[in-house]
């Protein structure tokens, strides 16, 4: 609602249920789209933003749990709220273990559902934010030359300039220059910040030389 992109998608084979749910989410101020089947949803282009899927468990074709599995491999950041007419414990457990935000039995309270959707969108946003940060950090790291990247890895591991110079068979002065460039390219001024950015970018430490 705060300008950031958010979307609620309803996937239910019952037309009147999905229409009503779409309307309910719009009334709560969300953008909402409705889909008659899991396949329909999968053919939609991937949404770049926080997204909550309100998913019926029992559907013809690919059912709710099947769609949940299919989404895992796609790498988008959908968060799922399941709705079902049958409050069946084993299905609910399976869905929750795989990371569903909530599992609601029809007919449910609208506040309960909107609350769950709100939570799901928050999770999704969080995930999105982390991914954004990672990508941003990666982008910065990608600007480093191979030599600079190697220096970065040793710095992150806590090596001193002298040690790095001896590892890389070069002068300490050269390492100092490289290190200054790395700090500049990654936009940080202190070693702790450098470590944080590298972590976000997923820079693996070099093999233990010992």
């Amino acid at each position, binding site marked *: 609602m705060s300008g950031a992109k958010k979307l609620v998608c309803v996937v239910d084979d*019952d037309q*009147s*249920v999905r*229409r*009503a*749910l779409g*309307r*309910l989410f*719009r*009334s*709560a101020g969300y953008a909402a789209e409705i889909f008659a089947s899991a396949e329909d949803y999968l053919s939609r282009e991937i949404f770049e933003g926080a997204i909550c899927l309100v998913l019926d468990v*029992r*559907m*013809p074709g690919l*059912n709710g749990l099947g769609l949940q599995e299919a989404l895992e491999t796609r790498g988008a950041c959908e968060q799922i709220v399941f*709705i079902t*007419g*049958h409050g069946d414990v084993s299905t609910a457990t399976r869905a929750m273990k795989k990371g569903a935000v909530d599992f609601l039995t*029809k*007919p*449910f309270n*609208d*506040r309960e*559902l909107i609350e769950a959707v709100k939570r799901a969108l928050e999770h999704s946003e969080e995930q999105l934010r982390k991914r954004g940060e990672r990508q941003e950090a990666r982008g910065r790291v990608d600007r480093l030359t191979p030599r600079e990247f190697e220096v970065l890895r040793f710095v992150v591991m806590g090596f001193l300039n002298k040690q790095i110079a001896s590892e890389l068979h070069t002068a300490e002065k050269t390492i100092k220059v490289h290190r200054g460039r790395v700090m500049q390219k990654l936009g940080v001024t202190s070693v702790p910040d450098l470590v944080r950015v590298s972590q976000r970018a997923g820079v693996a430490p070099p093999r233990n030389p010992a």
Partner: protein
Amino acid sequence: MKNLAAPVRLAGLGSHPQTERSDALSFDWRVASIGLSVALAYYLGAKIGFALTLRPHPVSVLWPPNSILLAALLLTPVRVWWLILLAAFPAHLAAQLQGSVPPAMILCWFISNSCEALIGAGCVRYLIDRPVRFDRLGNVGIFIFFAALLAPFLSSFVDAAFVAINHWGGDSYWQVWRIRFSSNVLAALTLVPFIVTWSAEGIGWLSRIRSARFLEAALLLLAFLSVNTIVFYKLDPTADSALLYLPLPFLIWAAVRFGSRGASAAICTLTFLAIWSAGHRYGPFSTRSAEENALSIQMFLIVMSVPLLLLAGVIEERSKGATTLREREERISLAAESANLAFWSINFERRESWMSDKGRAIFNFRPDERLSRELFLPRVHPEDRNTVDEAIERARASSQTFESEYRLLRPDGDIRWLISRGRYVSRVSSMGELTASLAHELNQPLTAIASNAAAGRRFLAQGPPESKVFEELLADVAADARRAGDIIHGIHHFVRKGEGTRRPINLNEIVREVLRLLHSDLLGRGTAVETELAPSLPVVDADPVQLQQVLLNLLMNSLEAMQSTSAANRRIVISTTCEANTSVAVSVRDYGNGLPADDVDKVFSHFYSTKPNGMGMGLTIVRSIVEAHGGKLRAENVDEGARFSFSLPVIREPETREIA
């Protein structure tokens, strides 16, 4: 008469096993007094009969002696009937000898009159347990048919024959038969009920009657007499004949409020007044010849009295039934009271409950409080609450008896031990697994309605909404409410299972309806259903509920046949086709194991005997329903499965209905 034992069945006079007692009784003064009063009544009756003739033609409109004889026979045990007849004989002689009738004719008349009374009384006593009362519809019907119609009908042949043999009078055989028949029917209908109801119980009951009843009776009598006086004496003979029915409301009043006693007395009064006035050339029955007048009076009175007597019988039967019920209830509640027992019943579906007063006192419920588990459980001792609740739930789930012993908390802190025994009586036990599926189907529209309503509220909270948005929202709510209603309608039909009515229907509708009912069941079993419905089908004449059951059973059968089919292949194809505009067929094709290679008849019985599933009736019943609709059921093996199909004949008119 009270201590005379009552032989109920008609037996030969004197040959009844109880005759040894009749020797002692026959000399009893009470029996003698019966004889004497019969003789007196018979003689008076004959006198009245003579008085009620319309001159100049000597036709008696009403001939009481035979009816007096009949009433006497109905009131007395069979073994004293000979005495009644014996007592009536001198009275008969005394009455008839005053005219110029030859003795042979007098004797013949006595024989035919006795015949009539014996036939009527015999039939009635054979069919009705003594004492003969007019307080039941059945009794009144038996009396009217056998004693008032059949006996005069038969005895009039005898009587007319006697008249012909003796060459008495100038009338033809059929004239005599007709005159005697109608006057005796009228006499039996009007006099016998009056005599029997008024003399059966003596006059002891009079003292038990409240003064308000007396007042009402007097008022009725006064009003009745005045109306009759106006109708039969004051009215111009040429006045509108519809006015003749003015006494009817008062007759009904008498029947409704005073039962057979009131009705018979009122009919008697009406009869005498009507005939008397006609005899003195007053009123509506004095315009034509004596014979015609007599016949129209008789018709009028017979038509009035038959329904009235029946009405009185119905009313007494009902009030007696109510009294019996109340007495039984009182007896049971007295027994329950003294044994400290409470009775109760709760209908969970209709939310109705009943508990005996004693029970309400024990459980401390207010007299008008609606019973429920929520109201009942808090009164149970906390330590026993779970046990009791479980016992009820078990009984409810298994439709069996439950028994539970528990402590009850009284408001004053006392604890009482109780034993409760009950049974859960289910009305929908045959629904089986379908109920869950239907409940789910009902959940969908309810969810949609609730969500739409919530959305509406939120839109409103944000300020005046767009009318188009709201229009759509409300249309959706209405559609879902209708859908929920349709589902409930469907459940209702399934539960009722009763005789449906046939109407012209489109089989496509039946297919859609059944698929909607089974929707979630099919999803749950991971089975895809494809439909190939003919776009426009001629209608067939059928009971939609029964056809739904047929299709439902075929589908369940296919689902079961595919239990070992791999999930990817598990599908059913339902198609409807029209064959040469003369018949319509529905087929259900599965990808299951196929049918055993035996012939089709064995398949039907095989499935019937081996699959006792919750709601299936088996294919044998399916076939009988189809055949009852003039159709045919077929089963065949096809590639990778089986196909069941049934065809029904098309209604003759080339009328087609649009598919909804």
